[in-house]
Every structure is written in C-alpha cells, then in structure tokens.
C-alpha cells in the first residue's frame, strides 16, 4: 500500500526541522485534552449559544411554533407575575441553606476535632447521608413529614400538635432546607475538619500562654486560618443551592402555591411541563446571570476577609 507508492520524498532533514520535539510535545498535549475540550465545546459552548438564540424566539414545542420575537421573552420575564415569588423562594432557600449548612458543618467539625475516642463512628454517621441516593432520601423525609408521619408521631408523644410540614408555606421552606442540609452537610464538615487539623498547635499554645480564652482563640486563630476553606465551601454551597431540583420535585412539587418553586424548578415547569422552550431559555439566561454575579461577588470579596499566608 503506502510502500508501493511512496510520497514525493521530503528529505528527512526538512521533515525533522518542522516536526521538532517541541511540536511533537504540543501535539501530544492537544491529544491529551482533546476529549475533554471537545465535550466542553459540544455540551457547554454550543448549548449556551443555542440557548441565547432560543431565548430570542417564541417556541412552543406542542404547538410546533417557532418565531423570532426579539426581546419578547425578556419582556415576559420582567412582567411575569410569578417570577418575583420564584426569585424570593430561591433567595430564601439559598440564604437559609448556606447559613445553616456552613454553621452546622463548622459545629460538627469542631466537635469531631476534640480528639475524643470514637469520633470516627460519629464522623461516619454525619457523612452517611451524602452517599444515600438523593431521591431515596427525599422520599423518606416526605414520609416522615406527613401530617400523620414519624416526626409528628414523636411530637404527639410529647403532647405537641405538629403542623402539616409540607403543606404550610413557611414550614415547607424550612423542611426542604433542613432535608437538604442534613443530606449534604457531611461534605463541608469533612473539608472543615481537614482545615482545622492543619492549624498549627503552637499557635493555640502561644495564645494560652498569653491568656486568651477559648472563644478568643476560636475567632482570632481558628476562623482566620480556615477562611480559605470557608470561601471554597461557601462557593460550592451557594452554587449547589441554586441547582436544587430533585428535593423540591419529590417533597413539595414547588408548593404549597409557589412557596418552594425555586428557579430551576420553575424553568423545568415552563420548558418541559408547559412546553415554552423559548421562555425556559430566557429563564436559564437569568439563572446563568445570577450564578455568574454571585461567584464574581464571592471571589472579589475574598481579599477582604480571607486570611492569606503569602
């Protein structure tokens, strides 16, 4: 084959001078990243561009209509009477989740860091919900939170009349936050625990010699030294809180009313239940904008409150 019809000969020297070891290395570098980069182009960049385009069109999948409407969907966004409630629910959920998650994670990490015998058992227990399937976890909690479910049964034994947790607007929001925090707090707890164990013990000894109380030690030594981890975990937790979907779908289906309809759930309803793809795309643009703004905000605030060793 190839040997029968040799290519017009390029002298080996010329070829070598182009195909240098450095070029060869670049080529290998591109080969190594090729699958990942192709994937990101096809499954991130192209969809983002398509989404921007869809958001400028009126597109009802059921009716089969697709027509350019310019900023029509964004006008609809601005005047959608349901949207303020959805954004409020998202904000309540995210703020509640982040505050509760980070403070509980820090409390658990500090408790586990007390060098008591048997802490490995407690660590395993606190982490275990992380590995339980999300929907299975939500189903069990839905069962527990029924009017006549396990939690109210325990309350009744203490002569307390429990509410119908998932049917009251406020208790429903609190419930989805608590369910989500208990599910995932183990991840942040483990990161905090590792950060706590990296704080040099000499600092505490020096502080004790200077007569600093435990509280002072905690707020003047521990908190500043673990602040990079606090930043990391808060970025991950904020981003995660905006993506919550399965728990809402299983526990409340966005209800009662729209009190737990967060942005991703609303997007799902509009696009895949009501088939407004164009409007769904403009909601996705809004979500993207919020995620981007929050990440940028946290990143630029880091200089102000993260202790930097360098």
């Amino acid at each position, binding site marked *: 084959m190839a040997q029968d019809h040799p290519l017009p000969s390029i002298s080996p020297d010329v070829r070598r001078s182009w195909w240098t070891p450095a070029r060869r*290395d670049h080529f*290998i*570098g591109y080969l*190594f990243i090729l*699958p*990942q*980069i192709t*994937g*990101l*182009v*096809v*499954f*991130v960049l*192209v969809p983002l561009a*398509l*989404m921007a385009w*869809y958001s400028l069109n009126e597109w009802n999948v059921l009716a089969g209509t697709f027509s350019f409407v310019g900023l029509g969907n964004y006008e609809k966004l601005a005047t959608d009477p349901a949207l303020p409630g959805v954004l409020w629910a998202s904000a309540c959920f995210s703020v509640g989740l982040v505050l509760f998650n980070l403070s509980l994670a820090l409390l*658990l990490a500090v408790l586990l860091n007390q060098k008591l015998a048997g802490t490995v058992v*407690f*660590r*395993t*227990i*606190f*982490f*275990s*919900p*992380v*590995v*339980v*399937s*999300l*929907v*299975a*976890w939500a*189903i*069990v*909690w839905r*069962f*527990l939170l*029924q009017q*006549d479910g*396990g939690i109210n*049964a325990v309350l009744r034994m203490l002569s307390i009349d429990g509410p119908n947790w998932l049917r009251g607007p406020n208790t429903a929001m609190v419930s989805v936050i608590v369910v989500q925090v*208990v599910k995932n707090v183990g991840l942040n707890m*483990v990161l905090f*625990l*590792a950060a706590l164990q990296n704080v040099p013990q000499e600092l505490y000894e020096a502080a004790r010699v200077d007569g600093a109380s435990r509280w002072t030690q905690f707020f003047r030594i521990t908190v500043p030294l673990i602040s990079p*981890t606090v930043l*990391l975990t808060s970025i991950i937790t904020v981003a995660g809180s*905006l993506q919550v979907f*399965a728990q809402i*779908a299983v526990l409340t289906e966005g209800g009662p009313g729209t009190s737990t309809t967060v942005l*991703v759930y609303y*997007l799902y309803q509009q696009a*895949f239940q009501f088939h407004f*793809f164009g409007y769904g*795309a403009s909601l*996705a643009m809004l979500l*993207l904008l919020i*995620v981007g703004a929050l990440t940028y905000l946290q990143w630029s605030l880091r200089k102000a409150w993260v202790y930097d060793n360098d």
Partner: protein
Amino acid sequence: MIKSRSRLALALYALMAVLCIPFLFPTWWMITSSFKPVSEIFAFPPTLLPRQFVTDAYGRVFELQPFARQYFNSLYIAVAVTTGTLAFSSLAGYAFARIRFPGANLLFMLVLTGLLIPSEVTIVPLFQMFLDVGAVNTHWPLILVPMLGAPSALQTFIMRQFFSGLPHELEDAARIDGLGRFAIYHRIALPLAKPALAAVGIFTFLYSWNLYLEPIVFLSSPDKFTLPQALTQFVDAYGGPMWNIQLAAASLTAIPVLVVFVIAQKQFIEGLAYTGLKG
C-alpha cells in the same frame, strides 16, 4: 481538673449523640417501615421495629416496574460515566499541569467556564440537540454529558491541581530514561494520583447515581428509567405514593451504597478532604 475534663467529654458525647438523630433516624425509619404492613406504617404510637414483619413490599417493587432492569441501568450508567471521567479528566488535567502548548491558558478558561455553569442551565438546548440526533429516550445523554460536559470540568480541575502539586524530579528522571509523555503519565503520574483519582471517582459515581432532572427530561419508557426516576413512580391510581413499596425500593437503592461506604469510609472521607484542600 480531670473531673471537669471528663464532664466536658460527657457533654460533648451527649451533644453529638443528639445531633446524630436526624442523620440516622431517616435511614432506620426507611428500612423498618418497608417491612411493616400498610396498616402499621402510620400507626400511633409509632413502632421502632415492625410488630408484624412482612416482605410483601419487596416483591411488589419488582412486579410493578422492571426494577432489576432499572437497577442495572443506573449501575451501568454510573460505571460508564465514572470510568470515562477518570480517563479523560486525568489526561486533560495532566496535560494542563505538565505540558506547555500554545493556547493552554485559553483552553483552560473553557474548563473554568464549564466549572461555573450548572448543567441545569443548558438542559433546554441539550434536549433539542439530542432530539435532533435521535438520542432522546436513550442513555447517551446521561452518559456523555456528565462524562465530558460541564459536570466533568470540576474533575479535570481537581486533577490539574493534583498533578501541579507533584514534584517534577520523578518525571525528569523517567524522561532521561527515554520514556515518552504517555508512558510518564501512565506509569509515573497516574499511580501517584491514586488519592485524587479515588476522590474524583467517588464524586462522579455519586453524581451520576443521584441524577434526577436529566433522566426525567430525557427518558420516557420505564425499562430505560434510572433508579431515582423509578422510585417516584410507585404511586396508586390517584397519584398518591404507595409508601411501603416506595420505601422498599428506596432501601434497595440506598443500602448497597451505604454498605460500601461503611466498609471504605476512611478512603471515602479522607480522600475527599485531601483533594478538597488541594483544590
């Protein structure tokens, strides 16, 4: 002194024991309730152990849906996603950490973009793209998007951070011995990266195992369903959940992973912590 210390320890144990309740009780309640007859499930006062031990619900799980098939779907999808992610993210992470090539910074920006974009944002165009190539109601979107799309960017980022922190000396020695790039990656760098690979593998598996939005958007026939999606389908004629059956199915879903976790909890937790601090 000693007395006050042990009293403090006792107080800490008590506090931790109380805090354990919301973490342990749901799993306990799920498993025990799945063995209770329907009449006992909402009985008052509640029973910590089933008074009457029945296993009907477990049989019904497999009668009402092709549950074994759905179990297999979830498992093979998660294994495929994890295997692919480990290969592609370690290759890309290694190249970004160690090989200097033109455009590396720009291409890494693309990875960071993927890191910041929740995949929920792009679900509408992704659905349309897979519809155009006839891959809706197949498992391809559930395998390809997590393996190569936005969710995989975090894994590539973690691998890059890890490889950047490895000392250069070993690789330099291997290069002098005449090993090529791929051999260095495969024989030197990868074995050293076991903790990072373990963390990435666990994260990826759990991510795929938990996916819910994507399956309900992409899949429509019950024999293609994944477990999370199947769990919510055990409902009666009025759409109300059949609790004992849902709980039996949920137990079947949760217990195997919990068992693996309890056996390997040290690797799980310390691997994640280690990689989290590095990243």
